[in-house]
């Protein structure tokens, strides 16, 4: 028998016996960020492709959620900090090697952009809207004139944000579970999928819903592919990664991951969407809600399980 124990009673709270430095705030932040990124990317994409009129929900309505999601996400991030009075230090430094840093800066760019985008379309929601000050009118005019540039910024930073939510974790190769390059694309896909689902959920236009159901189906297919590859990668890798994978293959995260993320969050909504595309009547809200729920669970489970996987002891 091999016995490996810490005999000096190490009990650093939040590190021992397993790491639990990140609680609900971080996965929530990643989820909201990912979803907002998805929404903003689609909005920018369809605007740039000149399809604003056809995809009104995608370009104009859904983005109203983005600033809300981002602000809540930022608040969650802030809530997670332990030395909050020094929060400003995040914006006193640019650290290119730190995903956390460029995530913070990306948010710094995309959050105001999302506010501006919403402001440009505020009359879609409140037709009577009037800016109280003259300079706000002028600003609106200014941004409307440069809307294409704005959309490009939104698209690029939306993609960065989406990837960032995945890369943040995979940058930590100290946690064998996170130490896979698949996590970035997977989280990006999951964010886009949640964004598409939001649009489906909000849209009243059958054509738009159909288009996004197709997109969502494709993304779900990609996600399933990535998940399978991720596990094949773990199992073909070092002992610690095999052990990390075991948490999902018989270990304590098996049921929650396969039921909530894969079956409820991916396979069932995919089936429902296929049926819907084949003109079966399915309540419109079920599948997008499941997708959003699955995307949310994916972050939670990966963040929590990752903190249980380690190299030593």
């Amino acid at each position, binding site marked *: *028998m091999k*016995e490996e124990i810490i*005999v*000096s*009673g190490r009990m650093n709270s939040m590190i021992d016996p397993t790491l639990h430095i990140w609680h609900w705030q971080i996965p929530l932040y990643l989820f909201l960020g990912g979803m907002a990124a998805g929404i903003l990317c689609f909005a920018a994409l369809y605007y740039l492709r000149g399809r604003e009129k056809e995809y009104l929900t995608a370009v104009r309505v859904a983005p109203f959620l983005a600033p809300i999601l981002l602000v809540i996400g930022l608040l969650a991030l802030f809530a997670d900090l332990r030395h909050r009075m020094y929060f400003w230090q995040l914006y006193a430094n640019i650290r290119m090697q730190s995903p956390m840093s460029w995530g913070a800066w990306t948010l710094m760019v995309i959050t105001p952009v999302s506010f501006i985008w919403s402001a440009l379309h505020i009359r879609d929601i409140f037709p009577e809207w009037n800016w109280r000050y003259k300079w706000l009118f002028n600003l609106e005019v200014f941004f409307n004139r440069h809307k294409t540039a704005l959309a490009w910024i939104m698209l690029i930073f939306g993609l960065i944000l989406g990837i960032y939510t995945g890369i943040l974790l995979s940058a930590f190769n100290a946690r064998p579970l996170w130490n896979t390059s698949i996590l970035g694309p997977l989280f990006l896909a999951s964010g886009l999928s949640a964004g598409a689902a939001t649009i489906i959920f909000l849209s009243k236009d059958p054509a738009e819903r159909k288009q996004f159901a197709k997109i969502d189906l494709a993304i779900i297919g990609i996600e399933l592919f990535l998940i399978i590859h991720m596990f094949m990668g773990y199992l073909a890798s070092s002992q610690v990664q095999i052990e990390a994978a075991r948490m999902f293959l018989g270990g304590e995260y098996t049921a929650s991951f396969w039921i909530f993320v894969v079956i409820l969050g991916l396979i069932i909504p995919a089936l429902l969407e296929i049926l819907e595309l084949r003109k079966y009547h399915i309540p419109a809200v079920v599948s997008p809600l499941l997708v959003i729920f699955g995307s949310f669970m994916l972050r939670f489970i990966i963040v929590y399980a990752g903190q249980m996987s380690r190299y030593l002891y």
Partner: protein
Amino acid sequence: MTSRREFIRISFLGAGALALGTGGCRIFGTDRLPGGITDPENGKGRIPTYCELCFWKCAGWVYKTPEGDIWKIVGNDDDQHCNGRLCPRGTGGTGMYYDGDRLKRPLIRTSQRGKQVFREAEWDEALAYIAVRMKKISSEYGPESMALFTHGSGSSNFINLFRAYGSANIAEPSYAQCRGPRDEAFIATFGEEVYSPEITDIRDTRCLVLIGSHIGENMHNSQVQEMSDAIDKGAVIITVDPRFSTAAGKSKYWLPIKPATDMALLLAWMHEIIYNDYYDRKYVEKYCLGFDQLKAHVRDFTPEWAHGITTIAPDIIRKTAREMANASPAVLVHPGRHVTWYGDDTQRSRAIAILNALLGSWGRRGGFYRPARYELPSPVLPAYPEPSRTWADLFPGKYPGAGLPVTNALIDGSIPENNPAYPIKGWIVNACNLMLTVPDQAKTIKAIQNLDLVVAVDTMPMEITGWADVVLPECTYLERYDVLRTNPHRKPAIALRMPAAEPMYDTRPGYRIARELALKLDLEPWFPFEKQEDLLDWQLKQAGLSLDELKKTGVKNFERENDDIYIGDDEEVEFPTDSGKIELYSSYYEQMGFDPLPKYTPHEEPPEGYYRLIYGRAPMHTFSRTSNNPNLTDLMDENSVWVNPKVAKEWGMVNDQYIRLKNQDDVVSEFPVKVRVTERIRWDSVYMVHGFGHAQKQMKRCFGKGASDTQLITRIMTDPVMGGTGMRGNFVTFITEKAGKEAES
């Protein structure tokens, strides 16, 4: 049986007063420096002390923060006991001072609506209470009916008090529960004991043999340091232990002996060494007496014979004997320290002494060095009254080989049914926690129930204080002066302890407690100095030294008068035995009716389903005294019971599962204890660290944590020579169902 006292744990009246001073567990502020490095090294000055976390008494420095808080304790570089490095307990000594659960005020037992509780009292009242009862005991039964149990550096104050009062019934648990058998055996053989710190020359040994001594877990400081030095120098280490001790992990040979059979191994080694002519012939011929008898005695004790008893393979016994011979005389068969195991401990220690004599290691480099002590002048006091009776008169003829009073004899003498020649009616218990220190708790409790007075002087609300009529809170060693440390060592030395802080709460130094009690007993002439420091000052002045000087250095080493640390070639030596020789054959023991040469006697083995309970030390704790120390509980807050994986499987036990233990007399451990499944223990034994399983609620950190080995040691194998309490003849089984994780009250 008059149940005068039921066991009531201290409950305080006037809880309001308790709100004061929650010293322990504080989070220090952090000073920040540019560059992100915190610099705690900003203390001012340092105060000399020597450590009281165990009896090695390492000298160190107390550092304080600029705010005046005690910050850290660091070893004194000049000190031979520690060489500038304290052990974990000594380093964590600050926790003793900051422990918010400390005793804070004198307490007197009261009866209140049928319930016996304690109330806080003024010092004057508490001391007067004691004085009245001591005077009464003296006049009714004689002063010898008062017994003192004491341990540690504060002992001298109370010993002086007792001698002045007229009683020499002064016992330390470090004798009959610890080193007594060893010291008697070495005195019988070499005429001299091995002292504390032991005069073992581990630093220069080429072969170190450890019979159970688990150095490394037994953290007696310079021994651990020297063992490490010896490893560096390539010394061979042979460890005999049924458990894979830390020392065993560092040994070339680990002999996983069947417990209780060491004597057979020792005899076989003697056989090998004698019959292969491995012994130091010149040394034996010149200095030893009784070689021929020994040779005849061990003729049949072959390795094959020992194999059947010890389970150690004959060729290993041969090989290890040769290793010792190769290193001789720089070989050290360590005498151990806590040796009260199986009741024949004096004889086992004799075997160890004899083995050392055969190898010529006594008085030789790498064996045992000859110690030197600094003799400090003591003030001339009036002669003590001659006690008409001593502990030995309680039960005449018992323990004839005991050179010091036996704790358990004094306890027996407190129980009328035992028909002692005279009764013990009162105890003062200073700095020893008898409930966890002396086995057979039921007997100790019975004794207490027959007493007229029990006083406990302690720093913590330990179990013994719960049984006292009066509890006197002493301040910790960091808050007081104490006697100058003059233990013998390679070089004579003295070390100073002085207060690093004022006594917290309403606590007082032992000297002051003893002196003020003496005043109330009209014994002032024996306490001519008002304060401890006045005495130290006087002593140092007499020696041509000064207290102020010593405050600056903490330790003062002196050169030896003669260059005599080892026996010189061809030196004529007169050993302080009756014969002036090293007595391999002990006529003295023969006269007393004991075996003149050690013999192997088999000991009882655990019955089916039971396992031998063995115990030892964890490096970060000292007995029961540190279990509540915040710094040290941080490292280890409960003990576990070590179980071999085979046994665990048989019982369906898993790591970290809580169980209870039940011994052969159906005593069940009061608190649940965690299982540690480990290959480090034999399948016929279980192992526990001594000092846990505290039942005293006032100690919040350690209450109910782990199990107490003492509670399960109800069968005692008493050493007929000197009264040592052999504690390893107890067997336990497991209660795995409903062990209850939560400690119950």
